[in-house]
């Protein structure tokens, strides 16, 4: 096998390895939890399909939805971050930068404050808010010519503004505070299959489309003029990438709350492993994002069982130092020298 980092066989090996790791991770996550259930019980419970058996209930209604949610959210946020970092040519970009978190947060709070009977709509509302925020960011950036810089600046401005509105709503209606905290911290406890069903499919389709345009994103990285002279419709590619990034992040945030950091750090690690070719970077980010989030969620619910640590804390604890290590180790994390 050619161990040259840029060779095809290396890339395929890495992806295969990560895929296997993910499958193992899903398996482990389903087998381990706060309640100690021996493996043989799990297998027989699933075979019997008896929904009154507590083992069956825990596996099917608690662990599996949670595992899937972590994988979907991790994949979505990682791919979203990788796309943004490529399209905006900014390795500090993350879904947060284009307003996803703040938009989702505002709409979730609006539901909790003004329509508390419809709390089940929070998922849809959060997703809508995320998309609308991104449209607003793009619309403003368009006024100044959609360059990478203006999108980031516009995103920061819009996020602050939306954040201020959210805080105002919370001040005027202080009873909604608890709803906001839960959403702000984020996590996968209490997830049901219904909540992730729609988002999960949106995520799968969005990732597929992202893979399809991944080569075009490579061309975009050459610079606007070179890309245009090669016949690339740069506005369309940039816009599509942003929309996909928003849809991915919005879907994840809608059921997972505002967990940050994954979209920022996973692409860096992926680039460290396989370089900048989006055709490889995006799938690797997806796999790595799923694995990382899965592990963090597993640790969150197992370390101090029966007490659960918010998964965001584990993510920061693991991700932060590792990120620093990457930064120190080399300039590989940056897109451009």
């Amino acid at each position: 096998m050619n161990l040259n980092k840029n060779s095809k066989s290396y890339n395929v090996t890495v992806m295969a390895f990560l895929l296997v790791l993910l499958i193992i991770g899903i398996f482990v996550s389903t087998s381990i939890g706060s309640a100690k259930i021996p493996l043989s019980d799990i297998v027989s419970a699933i075979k019997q399909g008896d929904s009154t058996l507590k083992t069956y209930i825990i596996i099917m209604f608690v662990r599996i939805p949670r595992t899937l949610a972590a994988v979907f959210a991790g994949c979505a946020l990682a791919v979203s971050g990788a796309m943004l970092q490529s399209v905006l040519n900014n390795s500090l970009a993350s879904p947060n930068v284009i307003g996803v978190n703040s938009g989702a947060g505002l709409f979730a709070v609006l539901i909790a404050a003004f329509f508390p009977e419809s709390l089940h709509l929070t998922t849809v509302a959060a997703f809508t808010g995320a998309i609308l925020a991104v449209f607003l960011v793009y619309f403003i950036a368009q006024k100044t010519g959609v360059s990478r810089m203006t999108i980031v600046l516009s995103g920061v401005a819009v996020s602050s503004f939306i954040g201020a509105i959210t805080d105002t709503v919370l001040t005027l209606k202080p009873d909604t505070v608890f709803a906001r905290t839960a959403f702000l911290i984020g996590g996968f406890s209490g997830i049901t299959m219904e909540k992730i069903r729609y988002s999960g499919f949106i995520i799968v389709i969005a990732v597929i489309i992202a893979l399809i345009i991944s080569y075009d994103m490579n061309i975009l990285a050459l610079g606007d003029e070179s890309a245009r002279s090669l016949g690339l419709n740069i506005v369309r590619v940039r816009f599509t990438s942003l929309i996909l990034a928003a849809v991915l992040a919005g879907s994840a945030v809608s059921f997972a709350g505002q967990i940050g950091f994954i979209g920022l750090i996973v692409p860096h690690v992926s680039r460290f492993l396989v370089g900048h070719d989006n055709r490889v970077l995006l799938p690797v980010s997806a796999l790595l994002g799923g694995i990382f989030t899965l592990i963090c969620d597993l640790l969150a619910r197992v370390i101090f069982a029966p007490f659960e640590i918010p998964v965001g804390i584990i993510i920061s604890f693991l991700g932060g130092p590792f990120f620093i290590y990457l930064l120190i180790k080399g300039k590989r994390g940056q897109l451009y020298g």
Partner: protein
Amino acid sequence: MNIKFKIKNFKTAKRIFFILLIISLFTLVLTGCKEQPEEKENSDYYYSFTDALGNTVNLKNKPQRVVSLVGSYAETWILAGGELSGVTSDVVSERNLDLPSETKIVGTIKDPNLEEIIALSPDFVLLSTDIESHVKISETLKKPNIPFAFFKVEHFEDYLDMLDVCTDITGNKELYEKNGLAVKKQIDDILKKIDKNNNLQILLIRAFSSGAKAKDDDNMACKILNDLGTVNIASKHKSLLEDLSMEEIILEDPDYIFVVTMGNSEQALKTLKDGIEKNPAWNKLSAVKNDRYIVLPKELFHYKPNAKWGESYEYIAKILYPDEFK
């Protein structure tokens, strides 16, 4: 040009077909099988009632393995003569309840652990309407048809209603007498003795380690004060509910100022001391000058006192009307 046009058309057609395929697959799955728990149409239930969220709760059998996700509800269940398989940690940290070793801790009140709850094979789970994670948990409990009920207890009447339901379930109606109606009588007796037109002005402050706010009618302690014939100055100055403003307090100069702490009591009181109490005008308030600035015990005025609700009324009555209540 002709051939190019046809090829372009074909490519577009292929793309449109591809997109339509995805959309139709998507819709198919969306409208596809939904997980519906089998609703057995059996009207022979052991007990049915409507819970605080308006849901109809049907219990097929008398619950033997009860899990309470709120410490105060756990206590109520015990007062109703029931036993608990699982409780949340606030039962120990806030209530110091003595529980048998078989009772498991299933997490915190704010974040109970679903797996632990289910591992106990519960046949009845008590939830609070005010806690978001409880609402989420109920959605998962629906699937395997684990019975649950939401309660909302803010004032004594709520506790009484809940005790009524619980004693119906446990069958120990005599405990409803002892822990419910007797307390009601205790409270009624107290209220009979006071002159409702006294119109003592009071202010209730809830202090926590990062600040303090006034409380009004919704709050449990305020209702007690209200029932005892006082006027809460915060009802006239709603802004006090957000921020304690010295001006408004001076304006009303309440006869009594009560404090209830939340969280770390020492820290909360210290914050008060370093905050509003440092204001030079503070010591000029009548309540402060006449030693009517009183810190109320948490167990009676912050946590739900349940069967001790009568003691809460008595505690304040003795302060407000020392002559009537020796």
